[in-house]
């Protein structure tokens, strides 16, 4: 259980960010106390010392002091800048995705969290991860906004319909930690909770082995690609190839008809399946039909995983560093 930390009323520190966020928190508490005590003391001193002794007395006029005003503008400014910089550093750590992380897909849905591991295991409202390894979550939702929040790891990110957002962490000690949905999502918002189970690597491997793994995302994507959705008829090469060749495309720059270009990443692949006409690669016709409404979020994840698998080492070139997701346009 939680709440065994060294300060009561203080959540457990269980990720590599936790101490950084807590350090920032203590710094801010220190600043607040250092700021508040003199002010409160001054107020108390003044209200006692300068209380009215004669009704309607007219005290000495004091209009202000340029020196004082300047000093007490500059000092708060400098302090606020130290807070800004500290926060910025921690934020960069939290939202710059590592390249060597183990990837897990997460789909939010009113009102549950569905996770799928790279090896195919699926879980609902539980997420098992090994301790001491970087884990990267690629998240989306089937309906409304949600937010994947793990207080013990001091991190969270909104999950936004229609795009991918990312969250990463490295758990530092085994245990069972609260998972909340922190963005209001309707009727059972407060029931959209679960647990993060952090296990030793060996236990995690056992857990993986003990759970019958269904198709991995890559296998599922391959099946969709070749059989169920018929993507292969245009994209697999050979005489019928009318679409872009997908081998080795992940992480490469592609140019669009009508100008513009992008590095191929999860979001681009996702968008090309749902809105194929919006960013057509140079040299191709805008003839691909949209798959919007025909594929579920999980199938989309599988397709993206499969296309990534066509590029060796794709996992180490996971697109844009900006996060939780690039600014949408």
């Amino acid at each position, binding site marked *: 259980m939680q709440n065994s930390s060294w300060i009561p009323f203080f959540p457990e520190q269980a990720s590599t960010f936790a101490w950084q966020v807590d350090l920032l928190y203590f710094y801010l508490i220190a600043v607040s106390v250092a700021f508040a005590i003199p002010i409160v003391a001054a107020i108390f001193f*003044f209200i006692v010392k300068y209380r009215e002794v004669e*009704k309607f007395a007219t005290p000495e006029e004091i209009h202000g002091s340029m020196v004082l005003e300047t000093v007490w503008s500059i000092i*708060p400014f400098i302090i606020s800048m130290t807070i800004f910089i500290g926060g910025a*550093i921690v934020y960069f750590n939290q939202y710059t995705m590592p390249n060597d992380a183990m990837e897990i897909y997460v789909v939010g849905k009113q009102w549950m969290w569905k996770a799928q591991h790279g090896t195919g295991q699926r879980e609902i409202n539980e997420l098992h991860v090994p301790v001491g390894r970087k884990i990267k979550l690629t998240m989306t939702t089937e309906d409304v906004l949600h937010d994947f929040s793990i207080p013990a790891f001091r991190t969270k990110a909104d999950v936004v319909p229609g795009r991918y957002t990312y969250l990463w962490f490295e758990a530092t000690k085994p245990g069972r930690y609260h998972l909340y949905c922190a963005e209001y999502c309707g009727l059972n918002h*407060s029931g959209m909770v679960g647990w993060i189970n952090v296990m030793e690597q060996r236990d995690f491997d056992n857990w993986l082995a003990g759970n019958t793994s269904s198709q991995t995302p890559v296998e599922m994507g391959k099946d969709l690609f070749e059989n169920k959705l018929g993507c292969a008829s245009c994209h697999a090469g050979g005489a019928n190839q009318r679409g872009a060749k997908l081998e080795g495309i992940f992480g490469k720059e592609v140019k669009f008809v009508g100008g513009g270009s992008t590095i191929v990443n999860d979001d681009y692949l996702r968008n090309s399946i749902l809105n194929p006409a919006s960013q057509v690669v140079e040299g191709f016709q805008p003839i691909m039909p949209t798959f919007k409404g025909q594929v579920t979020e999980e199938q989309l994840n599988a397709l993206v995983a499969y296309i990534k698998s066509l590029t060796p080492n794709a996992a180490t070139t996971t697109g844009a560093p900006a996060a939780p997701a690039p600014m949408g346009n």
Partner: protein
Amino acid sequence: MQTQDAISAGYGGDKPSYLTNGSTLKSWLLTKDHKRIAIMYLISVSVFFFMGGIYAAFIRLELLTPASDLLQTATYNKVFTQHGILMIFFFLIPAIPAILGNFLLPLMIGAKDLALPRINLLSLYIYWVGGILTLYALMQGGVDTGWTFYTPYSTTFSNSFVMAVGLGIFINGFSSILTGLNFIVTIHTMRAPGMTWFRLPLFVWAHYATSLVMILGTPVVAITVLLLAIERVTRVGIFDPAIGGDPILFQHLFWFYSHPAVYIMILPGMGVISEVISNFSRKKIFGYEFIAFSSIAIAVFGFLVWGHHMFVSGQSIYAGLVFSFLTMVVAVPSAIKVFNWTATMYKGSISYDTPMLYAIGFLGLFLVGGLTGLFLGSVGLTVHLTDTYFVVAHFHYVMVGGQVIAYLAGIHYWWPKMTGRMYSEFWGKISAMLVFVGFNLTFFPQFILGYQGMPRRYAAYPEELQVLNIFSTAGASVLGIGLMMPVVYLTHSLVAGKRAGDNPWMLPGLEWRTASPPPTENFEEMPVVTWEAYEFGEENGLDIESARKASGPSVPVQA
């Protein structure tokens, strides 16, 4: 009846006033008198405040236990949504400008009325129409989107009365715009001879800054609500990604108004506090120009920080950093105000009447609210804190601790001017203390709950968080009692209160140089201002000796 001497000494009797100028319903409903309109706002805004308060009570009672047992989650979601909508749009935004601003701006600058009296009455009617429509929607079944109306939940998934409530808020927004417009025109054109910009009371400066935000920001929320309605009805794909829209666009539009709206709520409160601290210390406020300009600075910077509500929404790292930086910059003018208020008391002659007690309470609460704002402005920390009870605690400290306490300070301060009667100082002080203690007991534990990770808008929560929630609910009961008391003793004062006299606190402001309650035309003759704001002393025409001798009803017992 009192003698002419007593009247000149500042303890006037029954002169014709705006209250005696007609007693029919028509004489009120068709009035163009800013004072009568203010009184009608006072009554209506109070009704909405107590309705919002009842919802708050249900929220706290539900959260007394970890399970969702008192209310079903569907009901709970509606209750916190309606609490937010009523409190923000129908209480916090209009309270000080529409009641105290309306009543006092013309009096403070020596004008007969606002520049556009018919527009003023229109804005009250618009407020009523928006309010009645919203109440109708709530009675019909309510709305469960949260007051933020985030899409695509509000456009596609919520089956509640989103359209009707949205329309109510849309209409209500015009009331705000018209009031802001009226204040700006009035401050520019209606000042009495000698009332230069730098002789204006700081209450007026604060309302000037607030009015700028009202007329520039409110149209944006109106457009946002309109787009939401269009999306719900026609499904054109503005915000819903399933049909090509962008849910994050809604958040940008919404917070572009709703962050500045926080300053619509807090700036007028700061204006009240500047008046009360200066006047009850009987000293010119320390650094008048800095306070005046910091109001304008807060209003301007307030438009640049909306993105700090969206640090975890998926906006880019770099946007997050810019918004964090700008948020830190806004902290500086707020800090300046706190320093100046404190310095104003230095070497003053401080009396502890009810308004001053509220004002000192305000300083404490605003200090906590402002400092915790730094926690939330610091991006790395906010990732952990946002959407938790830390945020709930913070904005209640700023908006309730700041605005509501300032509003109560203002109501008590100007009550003798508005009604011509004094209320019970004893009960006033008790209520000020209960509100302060109850407020802190309610909201301080929520900072800790938030750091523990308790998400906001949860009807049920893990059991280990119960103790702090019990503290919070207990505090809310004390706060509720503290807030009910003024209703009783202020109403009682209307029939049994002592006569206040024209200038019960012996202050130099123009509003204290006319009768209490003021006549319909405000001043018997056009005042000419020859003194600076907050200049005390006999040379400014204050007959202090006679006032002391008259030993009026407001003489404080301390000394």
